[in-house]
């Protein structure tokens, strides 16, 4: 059993190649271990001091988010709010100030929970995930990353080093909303992310919707192409809600029944699209949309 603090990315990757598991903020790893969900790995390498993995930059028009960027850092980062507002919505909803201070986007994405908040906005924004090992670097579409609850395609010697969000088209907006029973330290009962871009005449140019906590992974809603060229009106929102509910395969657990989740994910999907559409049209809706729209617990 060992614990080491990596002083460089190469050192971290070498440790992973030797079987160590990474820890950044610890809010999934340590909690999971202390509750017997999964024992603490025999060898742990702390990666939280690798400053080169913590920066948020605009590179060639794309938003490059270091894997160690924290939720606190991202929720009010000007580049994130400008190009990936839905991601800022999601980060602002995670846990509480103390968990947002340690929780990282890399950890959230690679923990691969179907209830993760950052997943749906990243999926609708077409994000890519950079995975590095001691010998290679690859970049995969986030749509191909998750394979099941807590599972993803990364090999054990690969470290998520960055998330890249492509430059959004002009006149576009994104949003993330979730059903919650309380305003902090909550896990999404269900949630939805949306991105919308508008053509010059104000009709829909592109639209994407993704759902949280209604399937073994975050899922994209398919079959929305018929909305392109049209407008976001009641009938469009109703068809989005219907598609979201129909494509969900939720479970029943302590927090909600499958039927309630299926109904509510439709409601969340239409609200996410509504917010994304209004942002695309130039309206400033403050982060997070949950507070701006009064979704969830009153206080």
């Amino acid at each position, binding site marked *: 059993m060992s614990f080491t603090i990596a002083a460089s990315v190469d050192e971290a990757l070498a440790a992973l190649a030797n079987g160590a598991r990474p820890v950044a903020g610890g809010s999934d790893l340590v909690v999971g271990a202390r509750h017997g969900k999964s024992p603490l790995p025999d060898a*742990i390498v702390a990666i939280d001091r690798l400053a080169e993995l913590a920066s948020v930059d605009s590179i060639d028009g794309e938003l490059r988010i270091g894997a160690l960027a924290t939720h606190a850092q991202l929720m009010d980062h000007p580049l994130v709010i400008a190009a990936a507002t839905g991601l800022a919505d999601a980060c602002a909803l995670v846990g509480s100030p103390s968990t947002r*201070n340690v929780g990282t986007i890399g950890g959230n994405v690679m923990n691969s929970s179907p209830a993760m908040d950052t997943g749906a906005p990243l999926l609708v924004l077409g994000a890519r995930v950079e995975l590095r090992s001691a010998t290679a670097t690859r970049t995969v579409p986030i749509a191909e990353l998750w394979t099941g609850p807590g599972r993803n395609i990364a090999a054990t010697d690969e470290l998520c080093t960055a998330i890249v969000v492509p430059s959004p088209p002009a006149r576009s907006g994104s949003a993330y909303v979730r059903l919650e029973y309380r305003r902090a330290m909550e896990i999404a009962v269900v949630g939805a992310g949306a991105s919308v871009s508008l053509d010059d005449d104000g009709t829909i140019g592109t639209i994407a919707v993704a759902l949280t906590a209604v399937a073994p992974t975050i899922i994209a809603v398919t079959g929305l192409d018929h909305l392109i060229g049209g407008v976001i009106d009641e009938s469009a929102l109703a068809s989005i809600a219907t598609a979201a509910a129909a494509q969900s395969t939720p479970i029943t657990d302590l927090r909600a029944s499958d039927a309630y989740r299926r109904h509510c994910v439709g409601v969340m999907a239409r609200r996410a699209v509504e917010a994304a559409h209004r942002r695309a049209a130039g309206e400033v809706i403050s982060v997070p949309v949950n507070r701006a729209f009064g979704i969830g617990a009153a206080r």
Partner: protein
Amino acid sequence: MSDVNVTLHVNGVDYPVTIGYGRNLVSVLRTEIGLTGTKEGCDDCECGACMVLLDGQPINSCSYLAGQAQGRSITTVEGVMDGAELHPLQQNLLDAGGVQCGFCTPGMIISATALLARIPDPSEEEIRIGLSGNLCRCTGYTKIIEAVARTAAEAAATPSTLAP
């Protein structure tokens, strides 16, 4: 073999400790160093009773590996006081009736200290968000929020009182 040597810098003092590699920070603070102001509540990163400042930012020490704190600056509730003098926030919590059983109080103080350092004149909503990771089962929060607001108002009148 599974032990690690760590020096924890807590409230301005270095504490060298030899601990199991997977020990969480709250248990080391309480049982190795003897600073029992920090409480272990849910042990699930939910309740905020274990909150400490790590390099000035509040974190839940139940879900933070002690080894990761090597070389970082930790402030516990014991470090908030100025010698034998209560921090103005502590006094206001007492005066406002914001302390009942007291178990959440250390975490509340840590959260509120960090909040006031970042936002010296917080709105009620900002106070509620700042304390949203701290559960209190006694007070109903109102008196705690009052105490934080009162501390901010006093500090605005005499800016030096907020120095940590």
